[in-house]
């Protein structure tokens, strides 16, 4: 019995070798940490900067897609097509969230995450969806039109409050 308990609680530790250091031709026992070429880091940052220049236009495109998807889904009855459209809304809002978070558009990313989580969890074909999805969409369009980035500040708080009221009231 004691042996069984010991076996159940057994903890093993695996010491790891510096396999990757050896693979890149470095001394596995070197005490100093390695580094990457600073020019490579600059190049990587330039790539991010380049991508983020496209961010407002990309978000605008995604918001149009969302509005289109929602326009088709809003008055549709329950069924496979509605489920498919909900899946597309999930994916599009997820994309907005990723893009926004990467490029510092935190407020639009906040609402996109909230919409994605909502549509990913909720039962379809509820009256509540009409209000809640529309509230998210309106909030994101307002944020985008006003060029708001930070998810703090009076306007951001007001918009978050409006969406939260819709969620709390109709969920």
């Amino acid at each position, binding site marked *: 019995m004691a042996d069984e308990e010991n076996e159940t609680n057994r903890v093993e530790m695996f010491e790891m070798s510096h396999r*990757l250091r050896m693979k890149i031709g470095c001394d596995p026992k070197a005490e100093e940490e*390695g580094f990457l070429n600073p020019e490579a880091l600059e190049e990587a940052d330039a790539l991010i900067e380049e991508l983020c220049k496209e961010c407002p236009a*990309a978000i605008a495109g995604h918001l149009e897609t969302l509005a289109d998807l929602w326009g088709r889904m809003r008055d549709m009855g329950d069924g496979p097509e509605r489920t498919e459209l909900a899946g597309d809304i*999930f994916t599009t809002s997820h994309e907005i969230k990723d893009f926004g978070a990467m490029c510092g558009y935190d407020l639009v990313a906040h609402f996109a995450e909230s919409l994605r989580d909502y549509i990913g969890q909720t039962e379809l074909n509820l009256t509540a969806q009409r209000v809640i999805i529309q509230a998210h969409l309106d909030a994101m369009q307002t944020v985008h039109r006003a060029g708001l980035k930070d998810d703090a500040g009076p306007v951001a708080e007001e918009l978050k409050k409006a969406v939260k009221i819709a969620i709390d009231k109709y969920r």
Partner: protein
Amino acid sequence: MSIFQREDRSPYDLSNITILLAEDSQYMQTLFAAMLKAFGVGEILACANAKEATDLLTVTQARRTSRYVTDTDIIVTDWLMPGGSGQELIQWVRGHESDDVRFLPIVVVSAYTTELVASQARDYGANEVLVKPVSGTSLASRICSVIDHPRPFIKAPRFFGPDRRRQDMEFRGEDRRRMKAEEIEVQHGR
């Protein structure tokens, strides 16, 4: 800061390294692949979710020819991906029967800003967690970290993954650990 240049040393040459990149967003996948390419990573295997990643790992494992070489060296994965999440990928990797797979270093990139996701990712067995927005420096530091600091792996009744303890800090509270350090069996991993 380790990732910045030292006058007397050369930067890491990653041309011999293969990174599996799992990221569902086409924009982000392209960006991360380009950043890793800029770092000089030799091969980047890009895929969109955990399912594709496990398929790729299975295929690359099968084509492995030398016991000293694995085709994937580091996994960089998004956390939430439709079609198979980062969590599922980590569970698959850490539960794999082959040591070449289950000990692979995993860097999770997440757009979540909560500590909860970072802590969840570590509890599932991630080596490093990187929160978006990502910079060249932050991604490079995680890559260098898994190269420079291969943390010991712990196999416990409900956990298999890199040791989650990062600091040896003095603890003044009651010691509630059920095992003494000397009772832990030490083995040699990869």
